[in-house]
């Protein structure tokens, strides 16, 4: 019965920790603003069909290439599609691809990085040489190569981004693990008879996470840039799906002829999103890294 009582306390204490985190974040008003923007973009993506004023794929030849107006806040493109609706729907694709890619990369890297960091020896060498090989390609070129080779389906874009991000996280987690395995609590975990896998993944891996969370937030920004970049050059998301990078590419042709709204708004969407992720990432570093604490 005491056990039940204790469990009730659990979520209350978690909530308190979250509150402290938020309070720290609020001190840095720019980053707090960025967090609000990200939350806004996520909500926008979730409720896109409810928010968007028009069907993003509905073409109308009579309404083509209209400038910014009250009917079309961001104007229309060459097929007469409402750009605002397309930008709103575009958030879905870009965020989802970046998020899924980051999660896949994190899962694989956590496994590889912590195992090779803890074990050392030939396993460490093997994993690190593979990682070095992947890292020796410029990451965008590698992503291009993967999607070009596998065909530009959504899943392949996700895999391409995940693969280019795995080295970053793996090296980071391995480095942390090298340090953490020498800690006394690592030794203590051994002395109480924990199996090896439990020591690595349950006791030590969570201790590697603070810098990883920071890296993941920053990398979300890069991932979005990569999706947009791949789509821009025609290797990513295929039309007619609304995607910011592809929309920017469509609009780029019309910059000289004066239809600025076609490329500007999707481009701004990319910029604001990436910028916000970077700001939040920086703020998280300040919050989570004890060595940076107190430096304001």
């Amino acid at each position: 019965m005491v056990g039940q009582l204790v469990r009730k306390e659990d979520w209350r204490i978690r909530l308190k920790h979250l509150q402290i985190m938020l309070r720290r974040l609020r001190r840095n008003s720019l980053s707090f603003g960025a967090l609000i923007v990200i939350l806004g973009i996520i909500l926008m993506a979730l409720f896109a069909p409810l928010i968007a004023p028009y069907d993003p794929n509905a073409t109308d030849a009579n309404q083509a290439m209209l400038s910014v107006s009250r009917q079309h806040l961001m104007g229309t493109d060459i097929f007469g599609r409402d750009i605002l609706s397309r930008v709103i729907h575009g958030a879905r694709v870009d965020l989802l691809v970046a998020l899924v890619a980051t999660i896949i990369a994190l899962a694989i890297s956590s496994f590889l990085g912590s195992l090779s960091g803890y074990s050392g020896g030939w396993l460490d060498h093997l994993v690190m040489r593979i990682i070095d090989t992947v890292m020796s390609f410029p990451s965008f070129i590698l992503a291009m190569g993967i999607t070009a080779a596998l065909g530009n389906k959504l899943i392949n874009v996700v895999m391409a981004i995940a693969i280019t991000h795995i080295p970053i996280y793996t090296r980071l987690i391995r480095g942390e693990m090298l340090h953490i395995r020498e800690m006394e609590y690592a030794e203590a975990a051994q002395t109480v008879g924990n199996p090896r896998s439990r020591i690595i993944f349950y006791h030590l891996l969570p201790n590697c996470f603070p810098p990883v969370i920071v890296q993941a937030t920053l990398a979300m920004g890069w991932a979005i840039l990569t999706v947009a970049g791949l789509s821009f050059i025609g290797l990513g998301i295929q039309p007619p799906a609304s995607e910011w990078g592809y929309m920017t590419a469509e609009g780029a042709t019309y910059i000289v002829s004066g239809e600025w709204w076609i490329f500007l708004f999707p481009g701004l969407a990319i910029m604001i999103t990436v910028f916000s992720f970077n700001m939040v990432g920086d703020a998280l570093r300040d919050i989570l890294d004890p060595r940076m604490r107190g430096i304001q």
Partner: protein
Amino acid sequence: MTGPLLQIEDLTVHFHTEEGIVEAVDGIQLLVQSGEVMGVVGESGSGKSVTALAILRLIREPGRIIQGTIQFAGRNLLGLSEEEMRTLRGSHISMIFQSPRTSLNPVLSVGWQIERLIRLHKKEHTEKARDQAIQMLRQVGIPAPERIYHEFPHQLSGGMCQRIMIAMALVTNPKLLIADEPTTGLDVSIAAQILDLLKEMGQRTGAAILLITHDLGVVAGYCDRVAVMHAGQVVESASVKKLFQNPLHPYTLKLIHSIPRVDVDTVMETIPGTVPGLIHPPPGCRFAGRCQVAREVCRKIKPQVQSINGDHQVACHHIGHW
């Protein structure tokens, strides 16, 4: 009674470093009876902690157990498989460390760590494990255990953390508890509380305690028997009473004289020199270089362990001739 709980014979541990082979533990013998508090005392680098880790078979590369036997409850630990050894750790032999705050995992709440340990060894389900964990916290004198359960190590004081380590070490009812300088870094009054608690909990659970320390005062106050280590060897072992009344090894005598005293007006003695380097240690007695009564034979021939009056062992060439 079917023989001692722990019997170490001729244990030798070497570390193969780039500078050469470090003979960290050199053929030691050690005996722990069920339920007693056995002290191991010696300077830094005398091989106390290495011995403790060797018992748990957690010597890490480049260290290696070269020879010897470690009999625990009738089984030779050095002959067990890694899997058998793992189930023994934490359930039959527990260990607590020097720095309690860094020995607890910083990202898990302290209660959760105890709970997981219970579930690991006893296969209890969650509710029952929680009740046990809280009960144990209460036994080691943690106030409001339901609240502390959720705290993280950095939120607690060093003394509290050490209490939690003790709770964790004893919650599985081990037969042997190894305490490696459990009071380092704690202030004197807290240290005394922790040692009292250790002894009390040992008596309550029937666990034998191997108390590693560099403080002979602690040995005098808390141990039943004691082994004195110097440069990787046990130079003398006896009951605490015999050791203090009749020290037979010059090193032991020096150690006793170096205890600061306020009741007698004497100058505190120090032991000249340091523990000799353990890469190519001197061939004879390892204490010879620091010993005021050392003779030719001491520098050439290693003294054998001799038993005097039954349970008083000493390794010296001229017992009583100094």
